[in-house]
């Protein structure tokens, strides 16, 4: 019958078309998408659009992998196993092997600018949302600005020099990154907008201003979302990178005084890493569903360990491509020991540990994939409840102590810095130290290295102090004046934007 109906319909259509109007016959509307015009004029739509901006943080290009694993591979934290061949180029600081993915899943420039555009579109649309309450408007604006600031900060720390250590200041090609704060939704704008690199200062100013707004507008609705405290915590790190030490101190204090996140000590610190939501988190990226897991090839878990879980080390897990080097093993006194028979059972192996409680975050992996059993970092162990699913802590509250200690040192408050460092060492089961001057700064940075190993901070800590990257395995020495400190901007962006200067050396 349906067939006959269609037949009748088409004769009618033919008739109407012959009379001159076929436009209705040619109107086919998508069912899984809506028109971009007016898409954001209801509160539910804005909520959904904001979810997408958050969800882009999950990409392997951002916190799903690269901001933690790739940046640590560039630094002096670990070495590669060649189990799957990943991160070797980055670990060798090979030219071009540096935040340089060519596809959406791996390119942080693409993914971040898409997220920034989405956040800009939300901000642009806030005046037209029907039936929105003042509280909703404040939350949307605050969270959009928090996210925009985070994306810009992650981009500029990668693609540009950090204000505290700019190689050859004033050289034109070493600017910041394109700074866009208006959304693009028309082809006209998409074709014509060719944004040049803004100055580093202008980008940091924008990040400051967005985070100040977020602080003012937000409360907290869970650590997977931006909050006033998370904005302060991020601002503390941004200020540290900018050498704005007083600001770093004041924002760290604000963050520490907030009710968001806790600073853990002793065994509770290690257990914190075993909980789905790390209690230390002030802001974390949520992996809620098995479908969202990055999977066996590029998840943080697979990058760092061959284990599937800690209860049975013989279960086949990921690749374990990137493992601690001798420096990190020495921090925690790690070496392999056999704890039972037979030796062929991976469960009969573990590591020796010193008094540092963080040593509990390392153990032996397995040889199920045929590669050797290695000492691995177990900060990411499917703790969301499905394989390769871990919420990623972007900012942990502990960082605030280290930020404040470092900033206080730079402000000349060595006493406050030392006291804070020693208090923190106590939380990690370490003896107090009595240091002053340069040695105190070195100890603070060393503590930071130990605390954030496999969390993607080390490369930027070296970069912001203008220090060389020195590794023995593999044997690498990248001086601060080497062009490999910065990655290339995506070549297609340089090809397509005559106003965009490529980084030196590419």
């Amino acid at each position, binding site marked *: 019958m349906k067939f006959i109906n269609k037949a009748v319909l088409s004769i009618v259509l033919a008739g109407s078309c012959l009379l001159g109007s076929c436009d209705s016959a040619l109107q086919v509307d998508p069912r899984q998408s809506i*028109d971009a015009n007016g898409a954001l004029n209801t509160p539910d739509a804005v909520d959904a659009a904001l979810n*997408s901006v958050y969800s882009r943080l999950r990409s392997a290009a951002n916190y799903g992998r690269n901001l933690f694993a790739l940046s640590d591979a560039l630094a002096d934290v670990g070495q590669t196993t060649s189990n799957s061949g990943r991160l070797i180029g980055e670990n060798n600081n090979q030219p071009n092997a540096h935040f340089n993915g060519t596809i959406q899943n791996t390119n942080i420039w693409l993914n971040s600018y898409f997220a920034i555009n989405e956040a800009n579109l939300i901000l642009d649309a806030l005046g037209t949302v029907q039936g929105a309450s003042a509280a909703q408007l404040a939350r949307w604006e605050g969270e959009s600005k928090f996210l925009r600031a985070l994306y810009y900060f992650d981009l500029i720390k990668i693609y540009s020099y950090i204000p505290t250590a700019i190689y050859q200041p004033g050289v034109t090609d070493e600017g910041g990154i394109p700074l866009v704060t208006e959304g693009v939704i028309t082809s006209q704008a998409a074709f014509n907008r060719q944004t040049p690199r803004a100055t580093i200062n202008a980008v940091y100013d924008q990040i400051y201003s967005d985070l100040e707004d977020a602080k003012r507008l937000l409360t907290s609705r869970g650590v997977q979302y931006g909050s006033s405290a998370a904005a302060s915590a991020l601002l503390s790190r941004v200020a540290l990178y900018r050498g704005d030490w007083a600001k770093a101190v004041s924002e760290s204090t604000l963050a520490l005084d907030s009710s968001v996140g806790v600073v853990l000590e002793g065994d509770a610190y290690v257990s914190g890493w075993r909980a789905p939501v790390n209690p230390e988190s002030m802001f974390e990226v949520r992996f809620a569903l098995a479908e969202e897991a990055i999977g066996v090839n590029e998840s943080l878990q697979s990058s760092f360990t061959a284990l599937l879980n800690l209860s049975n080390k013989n279960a086949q897990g990921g690749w374990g491509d990137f493992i601690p080097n001798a420096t990190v093993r020495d921090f925690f006194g790690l070496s392999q020991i056999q704890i039972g028979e037979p030796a062929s059972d991976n469960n009969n192996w573990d590591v020796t540990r010193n008094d540092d409680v963080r040593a509990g975050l390392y153990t032996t992996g397995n040889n199920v994939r045929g590669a050797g059993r290695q000492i691995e970092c177990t900060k990411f162990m499917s703790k969301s409840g499905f394989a390769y699913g871990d919420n990623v802590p972007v900012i942990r509250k502990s960082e605030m102590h280290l930020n404040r200690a470092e900033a206080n040192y730079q402000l000349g408050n060595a006493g406050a810095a030392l006291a804070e460092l020693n208090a923190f060492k106590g939380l990690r089961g370490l003896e107090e130290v009595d240091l002053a001057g340069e040695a105190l700064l070195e100890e603070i940075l060393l503590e930071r290295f130990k605390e954030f190993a496999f969390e993607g901070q080390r490369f930027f800590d070296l970069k912001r102090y203008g220090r060389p990257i020195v590794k023995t395995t593999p044997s690498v020495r990248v001086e601060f004046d080497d062009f490999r400190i910065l990655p290339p901007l995506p070549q297609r962006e*340089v090809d397509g934007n005559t106003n965009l200067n490529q980084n030196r050396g590419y």
Partner: protein
Amino acid sequence: MTHQANSKLSLETNINLSTFQQNVPFAVSGSFLGSPAFSSSAILPHNAIYNEDGTFNTAIGGVLGQNVVLVNEYNSGLQRTNTVVGNMIGTYKILPNLSFRSLFGIDYRLLQGDRYTDPRTPDGAGVRGRSSQQQDWRTRFITTQTLNWNKTYNGVHNLSALVGFEFLSETREGINGAGIGFPTFQFRTIQSAATPESLSGFWTGYRRVGFFGSVNYDYKKKYLATVTARYDGSSRFGEDNRYGLFPSIRVGWSMVEEEFLKSSSVVSELKLRASYGLTGNDQIGNFAARGLYTGAGNYSGNAGIRPSSLANLNLGWETNTTLNFGVDYGFFGNRLTGSVDIFDRRTKDLLLDQPILWTNGFSDIANNVGELQNKGIEVEVSGVILDRGGFRWNSTFNFTYIKNQVISLYDDLEFLPANPGIAVGQPVGNPAFAGDQAPGAWFTQEYAGVNPSNGRPMWYDINRNITYLPLAADRIYYGSNLATHYGGFNNTLSYKGFELTAFFTYEYGAIVTDGQYNFLRENGTRLTLNALREVNDRSWREPGQITDIPRNLTTNAGNETRGASRNTGTASLLKADFIRLSQVTVGYNFNPTLISKIGLSRARVYVQGLNLWTYTDYPGYDPEFTGAATGLIPLTKNYTVGVQIGF
């Protein structure tokens, strides 16, 4: 089923039901470690598939730690296509020379896919098995209404005309899902899964309407002319630009019908043809012209939406204007026949995904970006080379040369911003699959071989100096994956009941990159992969050695610490030229009078081989492929022995 209702009306309906099911392999392309097409050439050959007791060897080391036989034994997958195709045609003779034809057709397909990743395989172990299911419904409805008229004047002027209307609607709708966590490997269907992993679906569709008309005229079959025109609208285009007009004209002069050639003993066929016509192309995404927000980006258990495409109200038809001159010829009673065609096809308003700067929040937009030219010559010669004593040798040779280049781009650009492979004067190449984006010309750094003194790979910079670390500024154009010369050569030799057919095809001029060969070209330096003997033999070993394969480094993924990786630039480009014996058949036809005694009208035995021999120096699996070639199942050699019997 046909039914002659009365002297004027006839009805015809046909309906065709079919179901087709096949087991599908683990993968037909891509670097899946369990895929034999990818792994078997790269896995180290000393790894046994079976242990001595007959069980699978699961202790295969290295990145290719999967036993491909085990994986393909334990995993399962099938694809089923159920089809209903129906047509209803009514023809009504209004006048003896005027008839109305009405066709309604429906093509309804259901594609079902079912895959199971066994928990005993490495990929299935982490998730304890995965079952995934796909259902894809495709509906295509078409109707054409035509009016046909013809008349002959004075017995010499033949005139016919046709006008019509066409409507086409296609929709695709699907649902797919996956579940993980199976009790044991025996449970292989999705309802046994502990955890639903994903659930998704899609809907898409488009419509096209067209009005068309044509007039045919010939004078004594000697002078021929056809004029046609179509006026088409497609729902895929921007609201302001949905319709296109596509006229064409074709004229012919059958010279052999002229008095001065009628009596010729040499010329048996001679016809000149010329045509000029426009056709439209709407092969883009169904909603490519629309600015949309789509459902994506769920976060923390809540749904997300994001902008997915930019609106392009001006997006319109791509128009192909073809100018063709041709000659059909036959000599010596058509013992030698063939044709020559010269063509120049201009593609105006070329449909391409125009790149958008990522800083503007999108990757690309479907747009009419410029003009493309395809010009060339096509020659076919067919002849009886020998016909003596019952022995006959027929041969057909054809040859095509085609030059493909971009003539112009919008705004007088020299190359497409953010995609310099699409550039004026350069070919656009062959898309991997029909409807895909053309890949553009190769635009990359030229490989200069290996430095004889130290074995390091070198490239040319833009000033033709040698460099170890080529830059973006050093890129040059280097051909495309489009073959410029191609054709075929068919031979049939027969003697009495025996018949031998040999069909060759050839291609020349394509430059390709082969993902599978690139892995093997690493010579095991990055990963513990098997190597090709000829690559390993060529690798640099001693000062003074001239070669194209760099020295073997086992550190740093096989790369020089301050140099580009060995497969950079044209180092990984290959010529895909070949001559192939595509088909060879030897057959014997039994004498009809002999076999009629046992009630047969025809009996034939034959042996056929496909792709038995290829002449090429291509180092990968096969020079004839589409896509990235990684994990590609190459063209198979195929032998058939057959008996054909007719009653």
